[in-house]
């Protein structure tokens, strides 16, 4: 069924009785050409594998329901404002895919390019912002350096005269913005299902069938499934799942919290980030301020955090835009992420033939969803990396080729 304005009208006039489920609920078949584990980035990978790379016999195995991972828990920010040559072309590729996503999938994922501004507070930070902006322009992305007059027009409520962190301007990417997170998985799922991909929910992968260094399938809670190639896309659980194939990863699992205030009238012009601490905020279409900050900072699989981090995040908010102190917090939650040792992801082969890995997304992997899916599909189909993801290798630490976006060396608390 193709969605359109005409279709909504017709359904409205006929009692909304003609809507159909968006995807089938098949039982797993005994064998597939491609088995993808995890339905976040994995759902996008399955779609591009079927659509662009024309593969057949594909299954996506998901432990919970679609969007039950971080794809349905994040603060929905998309941007392509990276610095390193290993990262920026990839995130700009992702941004271009976001821009055409809704037409491509015939699904409203509420892609909203409302812009993102990274506020800075000192002259050195302005220099760094200018350098980053130039790197963005070189990659074909958009970037503008705003002075305080420009910024006052866009966001008059910021605390420009803050005694400790006065605001000196911002790096502005107009094409950045937000996307309705779980609608991204639903859109990919509906489109992939229409191309014949089997989406199997409540199906946990519990092990791998490996013979003589070749992966020939997976063990699941619904029985064994044979596969030509297996792609693992289970960020947050990567160490637990890959351990079953005997692979130790350069990853720690950490919890990140997110917060939503009560609904307010439209106030925020786009996404705003604080430059003197870690705080980012946008306003949802329902009016709630959606915000977050740093990870809690200790290994965790708990999907909930602790109060010291809540206080830290709120202090960042108060320093940037004091009016936020008048809004009441409506809800908060946590998600478990793969924190890689340099803050950058992996889309790579493994030492086991036929087993491919996608993970290490830290807390910036939502914006990567389309490109990550595309590049994973490319890797699964052709057994070699897509040009924009060629540096996301598992052996880069051994080779000394870290992708150190922050320039602070290896530690698992970067993004």
């Amino acid at each position, binding site marked *: 069924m193709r969605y359109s304005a005409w279709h909504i009208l017709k359904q409205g006039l006929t009692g909304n009785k003609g809507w159909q489920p968006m995807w089938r609920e098949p039982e797993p078949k005994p064998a597939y050409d491609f088995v993808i584990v995890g339905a976040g980035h994995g759902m996008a990978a399955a779609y591009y594998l079927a659509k662009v790379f024309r593969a057949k016999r594909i299954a996506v195995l998901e432990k919970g329901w679609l969007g039950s991972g971080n794809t349905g828990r994040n603060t929905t920010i998309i941007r392509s404002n990276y610095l390193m040559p290993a990262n920026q072309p990839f995130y700009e590729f992702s941004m271009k895919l976001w821009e055409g996503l809704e037409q491509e999938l015939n699904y409203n994922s509420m892609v909203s390019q409302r812009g993102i501004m990274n506020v800075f507070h000192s002259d050195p930070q302005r220099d760094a912002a200018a350098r980053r902006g130039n790197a963005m322009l070189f990659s074909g992305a958009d970037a503008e350096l705003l002075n305080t007059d420009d910024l006052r027009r866009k966001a008059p409520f910021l605390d420009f005269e803050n005694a400790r962190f006065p605001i000196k301007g911002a790096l502005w990417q107009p094409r950045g913005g937000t996307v309705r997170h779980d609608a991204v998985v639903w859109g990919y799922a509906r489109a992939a299902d229409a191309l014949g991909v089997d989406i199997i929910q409540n199906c946990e992968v519990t092990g791998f069938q490996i013979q003589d260094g070749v992966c020939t399938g997976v063990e699941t809670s619904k029985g064994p499934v044979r596969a030509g190639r297996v792609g693992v896309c289970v960020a947050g659980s990567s*160490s*637990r799942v890959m351990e079953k194939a005997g692979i*130790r*990863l*350069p*990853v*720690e*699992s950490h919890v990140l919290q997110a917060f939503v205030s009560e609904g307010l009238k439209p106030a925020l012009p786009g996404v705003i980030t604080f430059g003197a601490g870690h705080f980012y905020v946008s306003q949802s279409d329902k009016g709630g301020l959606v915000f977050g900050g740093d990870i809690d*900072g*200790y*290994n*965790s*699989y*708990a999907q909930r955090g*602790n109060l*010291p981090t809540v206080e830290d995040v709120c202090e960042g908010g108060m320093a940037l835009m004091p009016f936020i102190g008048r809004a009441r917090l409506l809800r908060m939650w946590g998600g478990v992420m793969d924190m890689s*040792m340099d803050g950058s992801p992996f889309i790579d082969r493994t030492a086991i033939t036929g087993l491919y890995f996608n993970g290490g997304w830290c807390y910036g992997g939502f914006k990567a969803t389309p490109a990550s899916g595309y590049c994973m599909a490319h890797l699964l189909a052709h057994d070699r990396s897509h040009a924009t993801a060629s540096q996301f290798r598992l052996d880069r*630490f*051994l080779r000394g080729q870290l992708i150190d976006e922050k320039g602070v060396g*290896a530690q*698992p608390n970067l993004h």
Partner: protein
Amino acid sequence: MIINHPLLGPRDAAEFTYLGDVSLINRPDWKDAEAERKFHDYLYLRDNPAGEHRELWYHEQGDRSWLVVTRDTVTHEVKRVELAREAALAMGRGK
């Protein structure tokens, strides 16, 4: 989270900074024939278990001691706290 410091008693985890897996005590020997691979594994690879995890915490806003905390990463329950010095000696370091 409350960390029951062996010398100071129960302290708020916010007074501490976190380093990570206790295996970081076991720095490889640079003269080892396999030093390159061993340093790679030591620096970058982690077991990252869901469940019981022994890990290093530093009492930065307290007595500046390093502690080894045994904590459940699924429930955040702190099960045991030792001085890192004693844990390291028990592992045979410092000989």
